[in-house]
């Protein structure tokens, strides 16, 4: 148990747990709904990576910007995107975040700061520098969080973005969710350095490697990086080591992951571990956690029903939002 003034209190930890539980249960329901044939989508499960956005969110305001990727539903839930809007977008319904026009890989929800979700590996980072540049120029005090995987640190956009963010001291945190695999390729076979954070040296910015499955360590690391950005001291490369339980996409049998590696990772499933820690170390009554989990389940029930019951967008939507003027 962490103590001292620079440590999260139990209320903070409970909020982090709530987000984690929400992400985990939401993921389980999503997979079940797809397997039941009620949703026909390609799904990139975030299962195993719940801690990272749940802890970062403690340091963010609603209007702080977030950029994420196709495996991003955990980031969106943690930032506060309503479950109903998310589910409806996943179902292609008019009540979704983007009227069903973006879909799972392109969630945008400006009310919670979710500005871009990209389906192209690495492409969020250059855009995040622009959001951060806007905040720097306007002095609005916002911080931009841009999430990406370990694989994305090998694409050119990573290099161009970190360099630009550093020379301009932009208020952005580059959050690398290192889950060990770039699609089906193990980290060590595609990446030349031991830690992604080592690459920060090239950009003269702090590079921090943290256990992305440890809520307290994540909370502390995110606190520093966000505070640094907000104070105008520039960007941080925050590498959060984690693991991806469900493969690259749903249906992927993870045959390329050694069985022992997967088993060891599942044994350290961060959500039940943290739940037990709250009971053991923080004396949170199990009944409180049961109730919290049950409330989340109810909220998800309602979101799924809302999405399934909602209407598809009118076909006129194919002529709208292409340009400012409606197309003929």
């Amino acid at each position, binding site marked *: 148990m962490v103590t001292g003034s620079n440590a999260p209190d139990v209320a903070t930890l409970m909020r982090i747990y709530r987000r984690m539980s929400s992400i985990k249960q939401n993921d389980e329901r999503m997979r079940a709904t797809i397997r039941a044939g009620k949703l026909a989508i390609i799904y990139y499960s975030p299962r195993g990576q719940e801690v990272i956005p749940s802890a970062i969110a403690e340091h963010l305001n609603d209007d702080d*910007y977030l950029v994420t990727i196709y495996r991003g539903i955990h980031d969106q839930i943690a930032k506060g995107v309503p479950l109903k809007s998310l589910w409806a977008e996943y179902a292609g319904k008019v009540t*979704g*975040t*983007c*009227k*069903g*026009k*973006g*879909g799972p890989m*392109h969630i*945008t*929800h*400006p009310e919670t700061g979710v*500005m*871009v979700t*990209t*389906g*192209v590996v690495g*492409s969020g*980072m*250059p*855009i*995040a*520098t*622009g*959001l*951060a*540049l*806007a*905040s720097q*120029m*306007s002095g609005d005090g916002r911080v*931009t969080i841009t999430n990406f995987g370990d694989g994305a640190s090998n694409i*050119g*956009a990573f290099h*161009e*973005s970190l*360099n*630009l963010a550093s*020379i301009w001291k932009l208020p952005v945190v580059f959050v690398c969710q290192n889950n060990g695999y770039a699609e089906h390729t193990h980290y060590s076979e595609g990446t030349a350095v031991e830690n992604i954070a080592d690459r920060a040296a090239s950009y003269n910015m702090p590079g921090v490697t943290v256990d992305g499955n440890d809520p307290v360590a994540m909370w502390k690391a995110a606190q520093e990086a966000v505070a640094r950005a907000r104070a105008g001291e520039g960007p941080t490369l925050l590498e959060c080591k984690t693991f991806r339980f469900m493969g690259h996409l749903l249906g992927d049998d993870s045959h390329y992951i050694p069985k022992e590696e997967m088993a060891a990772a599942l044994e350290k499933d961060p959500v039940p571990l943290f739940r037990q820690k709250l009971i053991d170390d923080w004396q949170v009554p199990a009944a409180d956690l049961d109730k919290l989990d049950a409330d989340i389940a109810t909220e998800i029930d309602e979101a799924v029903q809302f999405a399934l019951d909602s209407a598809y967008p009118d076909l006129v*939507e194919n002529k*709208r*939002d*292409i*340009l*400012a003027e409606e197309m003929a």
Partner: protein
Amino acid sequence: MNAESPVKAKKINMLQGINMGLAEAMEADEKVFLLGEDVADKQGGGVFGVTRGLSSRFGESRVRSTPIAEQAIVGAAVGAAIAGYRPVAEIMLMNFITVAMDMVTNHAAKLRFMSGGQTNVPLVIRTATGSGFGNGGQHSDMLEAWFAHTAGMKVVMPSGPAEAAGLIYSSIFDDDPVVFIETIPLYYVNGDAPEPGARIPLGKARIAREGTDVTLVAYGRAVNDCLMAAETLAKEGVSAEVIDLRTVAPLDMPTILNSVAKTRRAVVAHEAVKPFGVGAEISSQIHEELFSDLKASVQRVGSNFQPVPFSKPLETDFIYGQAQLLDAVRKTLG
């Protein structure tokens, strides 16, 4: 208007025209800012000097020289645009946009649609190109059709200094992403200075010369080439109407169709290579709408379908010229 007004008589080139338009836009709205390689005065105000004087006047926060990093330049511009700014990103030469195509076609063009209209990208990408200077295969291409082929993009191509000033201003205040293509040879051609504050709306073509026998549709440098051809044709008793599209996308088909309905003959000309080009689209639409009214099939003029060569005779052979323009018109005259 006073015909003897010195403002009216003043001549400027297109470098100055674009500079004027940029300065007026920056003056009008502090959300307008420029970024690109060497755009600040410290680095020379852009490789061609288009942005010269602007960082001294508006500060280096609003005229930002960047590293040589096209993906970051366009990406940063996209991000700032969705956050409410009106960035003007300079990509030194059009071929270098290829390095940033993901930002342009996957993001700038699509974010409005994919977000269901919640975000939009009021971004201008200014870029220069054009053959004839021995710059070879990677510094000369005309790629406007690539962008016109992408839903969500606008493509603007001015034909002279006053046009450039009015069009860059409108491009900056347009709420969608615009690729603004500057033809290098036109930078140094003088024309009338615009009236201060003159604006040219996007998506509206201009009749550059009226005529009755054949319609020549062009944009960018091809407008001047078509005007020259029209002079030659006039001496032969052929009255050619010349349309300056100004905006390749959205395409002003009503103006084209009105003209061709009158002349019943059409030639489309551009510097870009001919196959799969803008000329193919315009020709096809004319045939679809006016087939039975046409006296001859629509002819296309473009450069050879090959990489732009270096050696002077090869390069001259590559670019379309007056001979091809006149041949095409004569084909329509039968």
